[in-house]
C-alpha cells in the first residue's frame, strides 16, 4: 500500500494523474505539464512535496554531530532560520543524499529526499552519538514558486515577513516553517506545516489562482535551473567534486573531520577525470538519461535529459571527461546527433542564460 499525502484528495479534485513515486501516490500532472511549467515561470504554481523526509535533530551534540555527518559546515548557520544546501557523504566521498539543513531554536531540521528515506535514516542512526536525538516528523510541505509566488502567498496567509526573508532562510509562524527556497529557479517559498492545515492552505492558494503543478513539471523546471536530481545526476558512486556541487563542500575549518573528507582530499590531490555539466541538443529530438555522449576527450553519459518548455529544444546534464568542451554528439536511437557542452543553469527569469546558439 502506497502512502498518500494530506493533499491527495485535493489532487484528485484538481484532475491529477496520480503515479507511484518513492512509495507515495503523487500527482504527475494536472492535465498538461507544459502548461504547469509555464505557470511557474510566468506567474505562480504550487507543488505538494509532502513526500519529502523531514528529520529534526536536537540535543547538546546536534551541531557537532551534523558537522561530522554533512559535507557543508552547518556552524556557518549562525542564526535561527538560516538554511544550507548540503550533501551527506559516505566514507568514500560518494553522495548518499542531498538535503537542506535549517537551523532552528532547538537544533537543526533536515529535509531530505523521499526515495532515499530508509537509507538516510539508517545512516544517521548508524552514526548517532550520545547527546543527539533524531525525530522524523510526519508533516506536509507545499512549495509555491514563480515570479508572483511571494505576493500571492502573502495575500492569502498574511505572512508578510516573507517579503523580507532572504533566499535560503526561513522563519517559524505558529506551527509553520516558511523558507525562501525551491527547486525551480524561481522565487518562492516552501512551507512545512501540520498535515491537517495543508488542505486549507492549498485551497486558499487555489482561490488566488496559484496553479497546481506535478512531478513532471517539477523535473523540467529543476533541470532548466541546472539543479541536480538525486539518483540521476548524483549517486553514491560519485563525489560532489565531480557532480557540479563542489561549492557545497566546506573544507574549512581544517579540523572539521566530516565523513568523506579524507576521500575528497585524496581525490583533489590526485586529480579527477570527470565532470557533470550541461548539454544542449543542436537539432530536433530529446535527450534522455543513459544516452551515450561522444566528446573529443572521450565518452560520457546523459544523466538527465528533457525537452525544455522554455527554450523549445532539448537540454540535459551529462557526466563527461573533465577536459570535454564545446561541440559533442549524443547517441539517440543509434544516431549521433550534434550537441554542445554548456555550463548550467540553462534558464533564469524565463530566459536562456548560457551563450546563445
Amino acid at each position: 500500500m502506497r502512502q498518500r499525502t494530506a493533499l491527495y484528495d485535493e489532487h484528485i479534485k484538481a484532475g491529477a494523474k496520480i503515479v507511484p513515486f518513492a512509495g507515495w501516490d503523487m500527482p504527475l500532472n494536472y492535465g498538461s505539464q507544459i502548461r504547469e511549467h509555464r505557470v511557474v515561470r510566468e506567474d505562480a504554481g504550487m507543488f505538494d512535496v509532502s513526500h519529502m523526509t523531514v528529520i529534526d535533530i536536537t540535543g547538546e551534540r546536534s551541531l557537532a554531530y551534523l558537522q561530522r555527518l554533512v559535507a557543508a559546515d552547518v556552524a556557518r548557520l549562525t542564526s535561527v532560520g538560516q538554511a544550507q544546501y548540503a550533501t551527506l557523504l559516505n566514507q568514500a566521498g560518494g553522495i548518499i543524499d542531498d538535503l537542506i539543513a535549517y537551523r532552528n531554536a532547538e537544533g537543526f531540521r533536515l529535509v531530505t529526499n523521499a526515495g532515499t528515506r530508509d537509507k538516510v535514516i539508517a545512516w544517521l542512526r548508524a552514526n548517532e552519538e550520545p547527546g543527539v536525538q533524531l525525530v522524523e516528523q510526519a508533516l506536509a510541505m507545499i512549495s509555491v514558486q514563480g515570479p508572483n509566488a511571494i505576493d500571492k502567498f502573502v495575500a492569502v496567509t498574511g505572512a508578510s515577513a516573507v517579503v523580507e526573508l532572504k533566499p535560503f532562510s526561513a522563519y517559524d509562524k505558529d506551527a509553520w516553517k516558511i523558507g525562501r527556497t525551491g527547486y525551480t529557479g524561481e522565487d518562492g517559498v516552501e512551507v512545512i506545516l501540520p498535515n491537517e492545515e495543508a488542505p486549507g492552505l492549498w485551497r486558499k492558494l487555489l482561490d488566488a489562482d496559484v496553479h497546481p503543478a506535478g512531478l513532471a513539471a517539477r523535473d523540467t523546471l529543476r533541470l532548466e535551473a541546472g539543479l541536480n536530481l538525486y539518483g540521476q545526476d548524483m549517486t553514491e558512486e560519485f563525489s560532489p567534486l565531480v557532480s557540479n556541487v563542489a561549492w557545497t563542500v566546506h573544507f574549512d575549518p581544517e579540523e572539521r573531520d566530516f565523513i568523506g573528507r579524507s576521500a575528497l582530499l585524496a581525490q583533489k590531490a590526485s586529480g579527477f577525470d570527470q565532470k557533470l555539466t550541461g548539454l544542449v541538443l543542436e537539432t530536433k529530438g530529446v535527450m534522455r538519461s543513459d544516452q551515450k555522449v561522444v566528446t573529443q576527450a572521450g565518452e560520457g553519459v546523459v544523466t538527465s535529459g528533457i525537452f525544455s518548455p522554455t527554450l523549445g529544444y532539448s537540454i540535459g546534464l551529462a557526466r563527461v571527461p573533465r577536459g570535454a568542451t564545446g561541440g559533442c554528439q549524443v547517441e539517440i536511437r543509434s544516431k549521433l546527433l550534434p550537441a554542445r557542452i554548456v555550463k548550467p543553469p540553462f534558464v533564469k527569469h524565463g530566459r536562456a542564460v548560457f551563450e546563445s546558439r
Partner: protein
Amino acid sequence: MSDTPQELRYASTHEWARLEDGVVTVGISDHAQSALGDVVYVELPEIGQPVAAQEEAAVVESVKAASDIYAPVGGSIVATNSILEEAPEIVNEDPYGDGWFFKIEPDDTAELDGLLDAEAYTEACEAEEH
C-alpha cells in the same frame, strides 16, 4: 475517460487504423496521447518506405519519454503528416483527426481483421491499468 471511436481498429500497442479508399491512416489513441503527456517531437517515416506489420515506423517523444509507433499492417508508406514536425502538440489536441502520423498502402487489407475493435481495445487499456 478516454475517447475510443467505434469505427476504428486498434493495435494493442495503442495505434489506431482507419481504412479509406484502400489506404490505412495510422495515429495513436486518445488513451496513448494522454498516457504520454505533452508531445514535443515526432519522427516520421520516409514516403515509399516499406513496413511490415508490428514494425517500428515512427517515434513520438513526449516531455516524459520516447515511444515507438508500430505499423499496424504491412505495406508501404504513401503519406506522412509533416505538420507534426512543426506542431507536435496536435497529437494531444486531435489524436484521431489532424494528429494522424502516416498512411500505409497495405499489402493485405485482411491484416486489419487481426486488430482490436473499440470494445476490445478499451478492455485492453483497462486491463493495463490494473
